[in-house]
């Protein structure tokens, strides 16, 4: 295992903890060429042999190539399976107790949805029903989870306090509300009829009321935000609202140039998905710790995890089926959106360019595009890119003082990659 992996690593299964960088993110020029795998953290060298993935680094001038010091060779892409085995194995080798992130955050989030509903004080029964519709506890609660864990990790880093402040918990609530408000509006914009396994608000109550419900949730979030009483926090989270809207606008436009397209895609991804997570993490770090370096760490973690999350989401749109997802698949193509897998596939199949430019509007475009993507390595490339963002997130969060919450946040990056819905 040692020599074959070509690693300068110690001859043992790196524990889950070892996925983090400290010391691992050194440029792999120290390793023999051709043996470098994906960046340290989520990269694995298991008994199954070397794992290297083809890196798009050379060709992605538009994107941020963060940790790509290593050389790329062709690969077999069997990362998920290996990682899975690896992950389970690592539990026994790990020194720290493996904790399920969701378990850790459970206590703080126990009454999350109830509390959100309390913020949505409105006298009209129907409007209340609409606003409460998505706060039924069936969503992933992924964002509040990250926020609460980040809050604790920062508190511990600052003064060893494991308690989550009331204001930090409010941030989790506010983040989830802003997210949901944007979902409601997105469903109207996309004319979607199902989400999270049930009908959308606009499907049931009509578009007019759905838009109002989204506006109401947003106003309630804004009110809760004001009540925290901290103008810095208000500014940080209001940035999210602006980014969400600008992200939607970015989606309206399209770029001709291939390189521009990818940068455009990443920018849109940041604005629509990562900004919320990045800024909520930053907000709780500000509330928990006065050190600006910590704020930056929290922000970078959130940003990288957020982008990875969306990239995997875009992958799942191709690889998963509708029932499992809870929403229709190939949705992005049908909306005319060229996401990661498509943009990568386009390099192998230049005939996709025309389809991208016309936003898959001609009959048969969606099907053809889908086939091209599945024939190409678009899915793998996108997943690999997501891994790199996760690695970066891990690298950042590792700068904080060790704690179960910090571990959980690292586990979370794994979970982002592993998810299937």
């Amino acid at each position, binding site marked *: 295992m040692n020599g074959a992996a070509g690693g300068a690593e110690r001859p043992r299964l790196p524990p889950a903890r070892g996925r983090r960088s400290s010391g691992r993110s050194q440029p792999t020029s120290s390793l023999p060429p051709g043996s470098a795998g994906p960046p340290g953290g989520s990269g694995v060298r298991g008994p199954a042999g070397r794992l290297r993935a083809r890196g798009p680094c050379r060709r992605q001038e538009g994107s941020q190539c963060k940790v790509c010091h290593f050389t790329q060779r062709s690969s077999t892409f069997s990362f998920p399976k290996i990682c899975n085995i690896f992950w389970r194995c690592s539990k026994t080798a790990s020194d720290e107790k493996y904790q399920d992130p969701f378990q850790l955050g459970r206590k703080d989030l126990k009454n999350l949805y109830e509390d959100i509903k309390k913020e949505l004080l409105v006298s009209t029964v129907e409007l209340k029903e609409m606003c409460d519709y998505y706060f039924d506890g069936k969503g992933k609660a992924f964002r509040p989870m990250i926020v609460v864990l980040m809050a604790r990790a920062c508190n511990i880093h600052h003064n060893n306090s494991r308690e989550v402040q009331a204001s930090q918990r409010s941030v989790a609530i506010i983040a989830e509300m802003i997210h949901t408000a944007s979902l409601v*509006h997105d469903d*109207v914009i996309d*004319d979607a009829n199902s989400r999270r396994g049930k009908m959308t608000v606009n499907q049931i109550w009509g*578009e007019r009321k759905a838009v109002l419900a989204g506006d*109401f949730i947003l*106003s309630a979030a804004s009110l809760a*935000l*004001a009540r925290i009483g901290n*103008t810095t926090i208000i500014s940080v989270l209001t940035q999210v609202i602006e980014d969400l809207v600008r992200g939607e*606008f970015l989606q309206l436009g399209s770029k001709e140039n291939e390189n521009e397209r990818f940068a455009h895609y990443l920018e849109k991804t940041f604005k629509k998905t990562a900004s919320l997570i990045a800024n909520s993490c930053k907000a709780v770090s500000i509330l928990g710790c006065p050190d600006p370096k910590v704020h930056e760490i929290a922000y970078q973690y959130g940003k990288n995890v957020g982008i990875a999350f969306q990239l995997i989401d875009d992958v799942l749109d191709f690889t998963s089926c509708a029932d499992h997802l809870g929403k229709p698949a190939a949705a992005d193509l049908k909306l005319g959106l060229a996401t990661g897998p498509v943009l990568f596939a386009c390099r192998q199949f230049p005939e996709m360019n025309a389809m991208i430019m016309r936003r898959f509007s001609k009959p048969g475009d969606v099907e053809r595009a889908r086939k091209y993507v599945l024939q190409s390595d678009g899915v793998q490339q996108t997943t690999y890119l997501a891994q790199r963002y996760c690695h970066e997130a891990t690298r950042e969060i590792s700068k904080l003082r060790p704690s179960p919450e910090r571990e959980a946040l690292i586990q979370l990056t794994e979970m982002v990659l592993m998810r299937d819905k």
Partner: protein
Amino acid sequence: MSLRCLLSDELSNIAMQVRKLVGTKHPLLDTARGFVYDSRNNLQMRGLVVLLISKAAGPSTAELSFQHNMVSGIYSSQRSLAEITELIHTAFLVHRGIVNIGELKSCDGPLKDMQFGNKMAVLSGDFLLANACTSLAQLQNTKVVELISSAIGDLVQGIYYENSKSSEENCLTDDIGISTWKEQVFLSHSALLAKSCQAAMELAKHSAEIQDMAFQYGKHMSMSHKLHSDLQPFVKESSSDTVAFSLNSAPAVLHQEFLGREAWIKQIKEAQGKGNIMDYKKLQEAIKAGKGVTSAIDLCRCHGSRALAALERFPPSEARAALANIVYAVTRFP
């Protein structure tokens, strides 16, 4: 509306896209047209009122160092607030113009156009709201953010009530008394201005009493404005064409209260005649014959007086006189 906002890429993008709606029946086109050609000169009235009341209240008595930021007697934060109020008002004008896809008929035109119009309406409304939120945050005053956020919530509820009424085909009128009507109209037409006026006072650190007076002015003046607007079909000289009016407007609601619901429903049915086409002229005559109109005029003047009473607490000035003139304008009937 702020120039910066108007010149943004996003809005030019929207403007370009909205052009595609020309020839369709999407309401967004009317809303957009209304921004350019507003025959009743209602453009940016709210912003104007916020500016005037800021000026009328004068500089902050609390903090003398505050006064550096003043231009023409108005703090830059108050100017920003006036802009914010307009942004929010406009955002909801736009969001009101969404159509329910499920209720469309073939005479409304291609589905694609309506969906596209909806998309533009949601996006542009959201854009304006996001801008308002960002500007609000920049004011660095949590109490003001609280006030305006709650005003947005009020506005949503008010519009929700508006919606519910208009969508009911069979029951053309609600069984609401005038007090419920007032509550609902407060939400949809007054809350934003009232709370903005109060917030403008807060920005200059004026006392709670002055803040309340500003709120009262905003509230009562907007109520008068709405009543005035509702009364127009009933006080104009009778012309050959009678415009359709809302059966949930003040005169109608008051008329119903005096007459009793049964008699009112009967009058509606008589005016509907065959084929369910409403003869608005006939219904208008019925309402005029009753006490609804005079009652509504009284109510309008009553709110006007209360607005003027609130103004009394401000020192005399040109700005205060202008605010009084607005009240006179919305309580004047031929």
